[in-house]
């Protein structure tokens, strides 16, 4: 049982990381949303699997939230935003795809170096989970800073959050996971609301309110 639990969890975690790379790889907005939905699904599965393995019912709730929000609601909402605001379908990158991938690999290498000193097998899965979650978090952040479209940045942020959930559900008996994921969802909701409300088409920092020039730090 332990072997299977380990293998499945590892597989799901690995898939999440793969999806993070896939997110970085995509050039088209709709594809990014799709990949993100898949990553949400994987996370939901991972949570559900852990709920099953640890016999922790509250993790089912987490899985349900992840599935509901990340696989259904948010992708739909994002697609609507894209349509409504007429956002370009291609992604404007600050750093080319290939360099981004290279940077991603470097980050993964960094995470490996970081987790190496952790005593192996001291607890179930700890080292592997940390390595992958760390990589997902860093890749999410990388996506936020190398992609210019607001929608991709929001997705980067949520992918970062996926890393958190991966870490949180992967360990035995982490309390308050549900509470925290709810609190986090509020944050995300605000974010999406903000993007929608301020009609942010391209970037976070151009609120498209035509006053940018005279407000951004009126000082020099």
């Amino acid at each position, binding site marked *: 049982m332990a072997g299977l639990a380990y293998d499945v969890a590892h597989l799901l975690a690995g898939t999440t990381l793969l999806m993070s790379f896939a997110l970085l790889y995509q050039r088209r907005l709709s594809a990014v949303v799709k990949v993100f939905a898949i990553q949400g699904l994987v996370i939901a599965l991972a949570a559900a699997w852990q709920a099953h393995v640890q016999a922790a019912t509250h993790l089912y709730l987490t899985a349900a939230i992840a599935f509901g929000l990340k696989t259904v609601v948010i992708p739909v909402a994002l697609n609507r935003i894209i349509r409504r605001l007429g956002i370009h379908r291609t992604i404007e990158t600050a750093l080319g795809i290939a360099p981004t991938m290279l940077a991603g690999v470097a980050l993964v290498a960094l995470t490996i170096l970081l987790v190496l000193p952790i005593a192996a097998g001291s607890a179930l899965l700890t080292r592997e989970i940390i390595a992958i979650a760390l990589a997902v978090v860093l890749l999410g952040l990388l996506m936020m800073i190398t992609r210019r479209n607001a929608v991709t940045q929001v997705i980067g942020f949520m992918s970062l959050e996926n890393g958190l959930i991966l*870490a949180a559900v992967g360990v035995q008996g982490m309390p308050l996971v549900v509470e925290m994921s709810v609190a986090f969802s509020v944050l995300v909701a605000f*974010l999406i609301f903000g993007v929608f409300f301020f009609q942010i088409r391209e970037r976070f920092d151009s609120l498209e309110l035509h006053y940018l020039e005279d407000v951004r730090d009126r*000082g020099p």
Partner: protein
Amino acid sequence: MTILALLGLPVAAAALLALLPGYRAGAAGNIAASGLTFCVAIAVALGERTADALFFVDDLNAYLILLTAFAGFTTSLYSAGYLGHEQRHRQLAPWQIRFYHAMFQAFMATMLLALTANNIGLMWVAVEGATLTTALMVSLYRTKPAIEAAWKYFILCGVGIALALFGTILVYLAAQTAQFHGIEAMAWTELQLRAPRFDGAILDIAFVFLLIGYGTKAGLVPLHAWLPDAHAEGPTPISAVLSGLLLNVALYALLRFKMLLGANPQALATGPLMIALGLLSLLVAGAALYRRRDVKKLFSYSSIEHMGIVTLAFGIGGPVANFAGLLHMAMHALTKSAIFFAVGSLAQSRGSQEIRALSGAVARHPAIGWGLVVAVLAIAGLPPFGIFAAEFMLVTAAVEHMPWLAAAIVVGLLLAFGGLIRHLQSIAFAPAPEGAKDLRVAPPLPLYLHLALVLAAGLYLPPPLVGWLRQIAGMLG
């Protein structure tokens, strides 16, 4: 029990104030609630040190609870006058004032929750809640710059807070390595006891994320970008509590984690990381003080600088430097909010917060102007004020441990001083701009109250207080 009262009071007040119509009743309710909270905070600070599953009180958080409740109370006094002016001059609609009051109490509730929470997750939730409430308050004026500032604040702190959550989860994971599970494994009191057996390597990674996450909230360079804008665009009382309270609470969170790592023999020394960020904050913010046009941005950079100093102090560690850090936290909170009180009143009188537009303060508003002069001299670290005492301890402690660091600190302090004094002189003493009209503003009493406290702390700290602070400094290791 008192803890519940401490947290329940602002929550209830927030709900009540959201419903209470009218500026007068709202302001009175806000003051009353804050005053009561302050009284309860005194009771908590004087009362016994308790710990249960969710909440606890020890010397460290009792100190900050007292400080937070006090500054919250005085700021509520100030904001009554501030909002009165805004209301008279139709800057804010009644619903906005009502919203402000509710949010003020909600913010106080999150601050106190973050301080009293005996759970790393709960504390995180509280800090996130504080982000949301303050983001809403920053955008209170609904002007475009205000909304932009709130947005920037929200995004940067959102990412920061996400990283902090990751760090929090990692700490729990580290606890796992010591076969330590469940809700206790997130309680400060328990974690602190068992930290020596945790896997140090995980704690290291966790601390980096926590440092970046809560460091964003504390406004450390290079994570500080949200801070000046948020301070500048929000209502001035909010600038005062952001600088005086929120930054301290974020640092408090860092301190707690630092203590955990300190207890673990395998874990990395956290000092150098904090020293690096603190020094960077001090130097960069000090340099950034020079080219400022907006007075509130100016003083928010000064807040960054002081957070840098406090972080440095705790990074150096040891009884003297920790004492300095603790004293500095309180002194900075009091002085900086006093400065915002003065600056807010002046800006209301002139209808502008451009430094150039504010000149002639001493000639036109002697009471507020001199108050500002004294407060800025105090924040700049001149005696006989409390910050000088704290900086004295910090520098001597730094000299003792790493002389080169003392040199860097001194350069940073001087740089910041030069920037502050340049603007202070032009605000306070340069002749008022041609045709400047001044609306009447009453000198804010909390300004003088804070200054009196800061002065008193510089001249004489009562031995019980010194003993208390020494004890906390000892706890911090």
